[in-house]
């Protein structure tokens, strides 16, 4: 048993090292009390719904979310809009469909099964409209950045005047959390930019938190069931381990050697 603890310690040390080495250049990001962290972490429904609002009214004019469908908005573990609300949201978008029997493409109101409508027809069009920079797809953005949610949350609030002596080209902005501090996205959020239906005051901080929560859900739509299943699985394993431990002791007691 003593040996086993030693194995445990050494392996956790090795992992600690390798994990630490992965995040080599650390900048202190802003953070907040994310409801989805921890063993029982869940999304805050209100934050997800507000975050969706910020995404649609602000981000979605440039950033696509190509892996999400409108049906996801009504699914368990997500913003959990009612089916009727999700249908209404979908119907508010024009979706290109076809070709029809005449061989023509046509537009129709969106359905639950449709993917989120893309702001641009293709990457080139997106680049042309944004000074050569492609606004990244936001479906897995949180997982695609080293700092995760804290990074996105900080970036949205990280716009400042550039330090003296730093000259910025047209269409380039200073952001203290961006890699290299130069970003082609202008500051998007300002206090009161959106009007929340639930009366929450739309400060920059609040909107950053809400939209980041929404992006986290978009990247990990099954996070809640993962946490719930994980807890059950680990409790089950621990109980089984204890039972097997005592069975082992009993079996080995037939011979004089210790296990």
């Amino acid at each position, binding site marked *: *048993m*003593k*040996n*086993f603890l030693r*194995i*445990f310690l050494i*392996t956790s040390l*090795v*992992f600690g*090292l*390798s*994990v630490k*080495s*992965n995040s*080599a250049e650390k900048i202190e990001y802003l953070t907040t009390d994310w409801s989805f962290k921890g*063993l029982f972490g869940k999304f805050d429904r209100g934050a997800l719904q507000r975050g969706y609002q910020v995404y649609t009214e602000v981000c979605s004019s440039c950033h696509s979310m190509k*892996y999400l469908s409108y049906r*996801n908005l009504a699914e368990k573990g997500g913003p959990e809009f009612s089916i009727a609300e999700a249908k209404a949201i979908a119907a508010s978008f024009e979706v290109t469909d076809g070709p029809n029997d005449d061989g023509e493409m046509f537009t129709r109101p969106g359905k639950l099964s449709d993917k989120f409508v893309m702001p641009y027809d293709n990457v080139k069009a997106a680049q042309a409209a944004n000074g050569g920079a492609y606004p*990244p797809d936001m*479906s*897995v953005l949180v*997982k*695609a*950045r*080293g700092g*995760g949610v804290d990074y996105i949350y900080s970036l949205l609030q990280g716009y400042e005047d550039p330090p003296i002596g730093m000259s910025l080209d047209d269409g380039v902005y200073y952001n203290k959390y961006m*890699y290299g501090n130069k970003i082609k996205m202008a500051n998007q959020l300002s206090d009161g930019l959106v009007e929340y239906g639930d009366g929450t005051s739309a400060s920059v901080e609040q909107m950053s938190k809400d939209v980041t929560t929404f992006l986290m859900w978009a*990247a990990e*739509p*099954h996070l809640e069931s*993962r*946490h719930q*299943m*994980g*807890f059950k*699985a*680990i409790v089950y*394993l*621990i109980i*089984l*381990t204890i039972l*097997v*431990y005592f*069975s*082992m002791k009993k*079996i*080995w007691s037939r*011979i*004089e*050697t*210790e*296990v």
Partner: protein
Amino acid sequence: MSDHEYTPKSKFGKWFNDRLPLLTLASHLTDYPTPKNLNYWWTFGGILTFCLITQIVTGLVLAMHYIAHADMAFDSVEHIMRNVNYGWLIRYIHANGASMFFLAVYIHIFRSLFYGSYKSPREIIWIIGIIIYLLMMAAAFLGYVLPWGQMSFWGATVITNLFSAIPLVGEGIVTWLWGGYSVDNPTLTRFFTLHYLIPFLILGLVVLHIWALHVPGNNNPVGIDIKKPSKDTVPFHPYIVIKDGFALLMFMIVFAFFVFYTPNILGHADNYIEANPLVTPAHIVPEWYLLPFYAILRSVPDKLLGVVAMLSAILILAALPWLDTSKIRSAVFRPLYRQFYWILVADVLILGYVGAMPAEGLYLLVARVATAYYFLHFLVVLPILGYKEKTLPVPLSITEPVLGGSPNLALAKNKENFKD
């Protein structure tokens, strides 16, 4: 194995067993005499078998949903994560399973190094093990390419480019590997095919590995030959089965923690960005389990020599049974070797650390020293140590240290540390 007599009780059993001795095999496996002083470091063989089967089963399911095409691979992985029932679970088990597999194999290898399990008469077990380890690295590398993220693409580019270091034919080999003039769709499809093939090769080699093990039987912490069966041994079932089972469950708790609570911590964020041949990531780093070799590769200024050094670092292990000249197996009775062993462990950990860092300045210097020491350990320290080292007296049987019958005080003290 040959000394095993077994006659099935039932008439049908006897008829069947005379034609295909499966029952004899099953009886051999359950009765297999195992040293009773095996400690928990010996449970990783069973854990590794579990890892292999987990990877094969989850991999099969993933392959049903995955699309090996440069334009669709990334999308299909997201499809698995979002729309396939429990697809996220299967994929996270598979992705973290690779890390767990390597964690277990490194413990298994270093256990072997400590207790001299590679020495006569177990050289063939050891060499098969090294081949399995090489195939594991190949499988892991190929698998990491399949999601077709940025690290997949650039990792594949860097590693395949290593072959261009071969004089004259290098460039040709790289083009042949790629199936074109850059890493692209033909590369992805062949990587997928090979990634699917290799685990079954490993499975076959694991059977040989265990077969070869069952000829001389297990080594043990004392490292002496034992009579089997005798009072020094216990039958594999139920004694070792339950002990391996207990250790496996502990391992699964760690595994589950990674899968359910930090599924992406061992991966690189850049791999959630779809592969883009026009944008090179700031740092191209392999998965953690390949970092020590990556450090060796980068510590040599010449490309060809770097590749040679990296390959030698692995292949040198195959020569280990002959490089280690000591007749004593277990480090318990080799006071000097024991110290060098821990220096080697530290050396490999340091190599892993600098492998993740940019190859410049102090990091590069440390990597070079650590690389030099790695080879020094195998090529100089081990051969000399066998002649120079004053080893401790070895007990005659494993029951002797267990019962505390040794007259040697120092030995009795050591025994306290390694009894478990």
